[in-house]
């Protein structure tokens, strides 16, 4: 199965001007520019190359933020990785193609402060409290300190 899967993924990657890296047996990685993410995932999903999205992971890799889409089909796993800048982080939403991705995008929005253009629930909070102060940094960034966040949230409650 793996070879057919790889061939089909490679043809999609060629359209997105990138290459497929083989990490291990049955595990592949595509690193793609932000503008090609939506067309690439649309092709992967609509052509039935993969119809299973495990989740979307946010990564703080120093200078930039990474967003990894984890797909699988049968025994093959495919990671699609893209990067967004840290300030005014905006990524394109894939909710139109895969409606089930809505909560995963909200989670990254809460935890890393990435805004997904096209996600209808970007104004809501999923995991963070609604009283989360806007000037606090998103909690999963490496620069955020849990102790400071706790102290600040406690203050907010006391002031209420």
């Amino acid at each position: 199965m793996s070879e057919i899967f790889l061939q089909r993924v490679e043809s999609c990657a060629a359209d997105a001007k990138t290459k497929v890296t083989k990490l291990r047996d049955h595990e592949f990685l595509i690193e793609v520019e932000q503008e090609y993410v939506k067309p690439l995932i649309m092709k992967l999903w609509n052509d039935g190359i993969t119809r299973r999205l495990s989740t979307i992971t946010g990564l703080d890799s120093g200078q930039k933020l990474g967003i990894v889409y984890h797909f699988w089909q049968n025994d093959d796993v495919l990671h699609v990785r893209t990067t967004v800048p840290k300030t005014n982080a905006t990524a394109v939403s894939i909710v139109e193609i895969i409606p089930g991705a809505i909560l995963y995008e909200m989670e990254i929005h809460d935890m890393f402060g990435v805004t997904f253009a096209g996600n209808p629930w970007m104004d809501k909070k999923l995991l963070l409290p609604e009283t989360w102060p806007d000037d606090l940094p998103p909690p999963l960034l490496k620069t955020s300190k849990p102790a400071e966040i706790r102290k600040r949230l406690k203050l907010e409650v006391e002031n209420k």
Partner: protein
Amino acid sequence: MSETEKKVESAGLMKYSTENLVPFGPIHPALKEPEYFKLVLEGEKIVEVIPRIGYVHRGLENAAESRPWVQNMYMFERTCGICSFVHSLCYGQAVEGLTMYEVPKRAKYIRLIVAELERIHSHLLWVGLMGHWAGFETLFMWVWRDREIVLDIVEAISGNRVHKSMNAFCGVRRDMPENMDDRIVEKMKYLADRARYYREIIDTEETMLERTEKVGKVTADTAEKLCAVGPMARYVGIQHDIRLNDPYAAYDEVPFSIVTRNEGDVQGLLRLRLDEILVSTELVTYAVKHLPEGPIRVKIPPIIPAGEHSSHCEAPRGEIFYYVKSTGGRTPDRVKSRQPTMANLPTALEMLKGQTIADVPIVLTAIDPCFGCMDRMSFLDTETNRTWTWSGEQLRQYGIKYYKQRRT
């Protein structure tokens, strides 16, 4: 703006949603995620559901970044109070993928046995709860009595009922106890008989049929698009089972088949989970009889080589997913974990649309969340703008009364 969105806005729900704060969900040792749903009603019918989760979000992913690799395994095991073993298994497999060590064959079989016992325990717990919410207390009592048998076996193997702490990197911490094989095989036979009996009950008993048939309908296409996992995908006919699709532990060496159904309603889910108990009892029996000899563990150094790896396993509720990234240190750079309830939530919201309030407990329990989500709900009638709050028990009583009245 869609018709529903207009209604939601005109009813003042947007304003309401920011003002109505529940600081902490109902907390109970057995819960993993109390969820909070805002239901938009039209008379008796649900037109829109807005979820609110995260009340017991403890920041495990952040905490993992400052703890040693091995400590994280036991921390992630505490993500859930029901399917705890499979979390440490999945995290362990993700980390093992970064090292060059192989898991011994005997350890793989022991992992399979414990994982399947956990599945039986979790499914029995769920069947009992379905009986409870439908007003069929006898089923609840019977099923939970049988669940004790599984928990006793788990305790004999691991020393604990729920948090087994069986896993270690590249192996398991405890060997199977001696002279237990016959007892396990005998108990599995008994449990299989009980599962067949319960299957007969839910197929014939009127209370269950009335409450579950044609309730919570979803099509296969919708479930696939909403990324449903595990039983929630299998009950509409999708072949979605990591044990078969991408075998881990010893699943590639034991013969078994997965169960799928085509009803696409809560009744189908009940049949599916009871059939899965049968499959699990067969798996445990086979694995116990064919347990290979050999070591149960390989010791690995505390520093994990740099790299990234992901792993997914079939938990009782569906696919769980772990992603780990290492920079070659004593602690991980990033650990991402995704639980099945999170993946099944959009499908559950879809199932609720068009149902009556009386069906809410059944449908929400059907996805097998941890039942904290039941304990607090606010209702909003779009016609009268009246809002009120019900506790889980009030809602349960309402559901039972509603169906009694409908019958007469």
